[in-house]
């Protein structure tokens, strides 16, 4: 039972799982050593594992944002297995690459990727959104190693990423900052303030990834407050724009390469909300609907769960 003093002290920071970090390092090494085709297969397989983890995590919590989790999973898995210069055993290392999930409501996907990288034990995922869990419905950097800044309200991650990119450059640290926003989130004006700054300061060490699944909470983005022509708008604001299939690992790896122009990179990653589970794909109601027990079983089977 939680004592009053525990409650006052709050939840402490989760700690690194070194055995899991070792597994992650092996995976990273295998990905690095593989040829293009094999590399894509390895990351794709890992992403399917993350999707199963997301489904189980949301099933246990009976809450979450499953549609957006599944659309961003390939982006996250590719970053953590094939791109980011990080060390989960030393999460605050000064010269690390930075990753910010601005669409903080997709915390279950981020937590799954962080846990599988060893930032904290995978067993913690079962506590997602449970009373007093470190794994809040939106990520909190004071509780979860690997989280760079607290997100949840939309339009916050990109300005912080701009500050980090500027700060790294001012200190002569040759590291990159990656930030993922939702597409509906690009309706927030603060993002466009930040993009203007990123272009003005020519932050070639910044990559914005827009998870372009074309659905927001209640409707299609284009029926709500249209974002298109999104790529052209980002280019007009001064970004080096790369539009890709956000579920194609090889395309993702290419898009995450450093800027070739010295300008900030904006990746428009065309995705499918609910990707990988047929009855959730591109359906607005799966923004934050929770699957029934039968739907969980069906989803896990589609996602390649062994023995199902």
């Amino acid at each position, binding site marked *: 039972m939680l004592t009053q003093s525990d409650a006052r002290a709050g939840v402490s920071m989760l700690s690194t799982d070194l055995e899991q970090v070792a597994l992650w390092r092996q995976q990273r090494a295998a990905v690095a050593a593989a040829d293009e085709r094999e590399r894509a297969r390895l990351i794709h397989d890992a992403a399917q594992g993350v999707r199963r983890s997301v489904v189980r995590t949301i099933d246990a919590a009976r809450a979450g944002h499953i549609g957006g989790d599944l659309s961003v999973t390939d982006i996250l898995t590719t970053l953590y297995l094939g791109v980011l210069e990080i060390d989960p055993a030393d999460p605050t290392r000064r010269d690390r690459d930075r990753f910010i999930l601005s669409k903080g409501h997709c915390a279950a996907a981020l937590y799954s990727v962080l846990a599988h990288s060893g930032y904290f034990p995978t067993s913690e995922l079962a506590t997602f959104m449970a009373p007093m869990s470190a794994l809040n419905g939106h990520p909190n950097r004071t509780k979860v190693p690997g989280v760079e*800044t607290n997100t949840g309200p939309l339009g916050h991650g990109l300005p912080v990423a701009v500050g980090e990119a500027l700060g790294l450059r001012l200190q002569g640290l040759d590291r990159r900052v990656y930030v993922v926003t939702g597409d509906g989130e690009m309706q927030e004006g603060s993002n466009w303030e930040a993009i203007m700054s990123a272009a003005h300061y020519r932050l070639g060490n910044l990559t914005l990834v827009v998870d372009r699944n074309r659905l927001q909470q209640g409707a299609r983005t284009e029926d709500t407050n249209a974002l298109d022509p999104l790529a052209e708008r980002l280019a007009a604001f001064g970004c080096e724009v790369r539009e890709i299939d956000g579920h194609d690992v090889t395309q993702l790896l290419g898009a995450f390469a450093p800027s070739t122009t010295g300008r900030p990179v904006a990746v428009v990653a065309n995705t499918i909300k609910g990707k990988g589970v047929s009855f959730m794909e591109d359906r607005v109601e799966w923004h934050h609907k929770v699957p029934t027990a039968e739907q969980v079983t069906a989803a896990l089977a589609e996602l390649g769960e062994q023995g199902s």
Partner: protein
Amino acid sequence: MRTDAPTATGYDNRTAFAEELAVLARADERIVAVCNDSVGSSNLGAFREEFGDRLINVGIAEQNMVGVGAGLAAAGLIPFVCGAGPFLTGRATEQVKADVAYSQHPVILCGMSPGMAYGELGPTHHSVEDLSWMRALPGLDIVVPADRRQTRQALRMLAAEPRPTYIRIGRHKVPDVTTEGEVLVRGRIDVARGGDDVAIVATGTLVSRALEAARRLSDDGVSARVLNAAWIAPLDQATILDAARGTRAVIVAEEANIAGGLGAAVAQLVAREGLGVRVVPLGLTEFAPTGSNDMLLEHFGLTSENIVRVANEALRA
């Protein structure tokens, strides 16, 4: 040449702010300044000349400014984010909440020209809600230096031990109210003058006025204790309760809205302890009419004369 030469009415704390920030930036290259096109009004022109790209001007974009500040802190720098108080705290409240206070990024938010410093420019430019808004955020320190010495001390402390902080940098000229050797301590309210009939808890521009009121009350045989509430959050409960227990009435004077400001904090504390001492908050109760800073302070009763009147009234009650 020192630019904070005395005038008939005192010193503009922005001068001390700019000079001290430059001194600190020379000693620690992690110190950077961020502003919203406010190079002039934040007194950062010389900083830009000397430190070049360590002044980051994001233009007229306060939400981005505070987020950028959080990112700079996350990258290992010590950002002083400067903007006129109303826009820094009003336009970017959610960024202060999520990116600074909740995320615990050590950003020092410098609210320039707070209170009614912009006088005739009107309520859109007055920063009188800032104390209420910022006080609602856990994990955020609030500092309101009463004079140039406290302004310098606060900056030195925050540079040495950066933490999420909102600091008011006053423009309205104020005389020195502290002396050399007085030390500002985080979370401590100083007793600027002893007394046991009435306590006046004052902050920022109101401290010199409270001291003047205490001198006048003393001429009438009333002993007034004056608290200089420079560090408002975390709140020094012991010193306030001691004043409430040691006097017969508590006046709180601030250049801010009384809804949610320092007066509300003091009243809540005294009521919680069941002390039964009267607490009278002085501050703004409505949007200000057109007028100079001095005229508006008078309009809302934020003068030594009115503090004397209110104190006598409270003691008679």
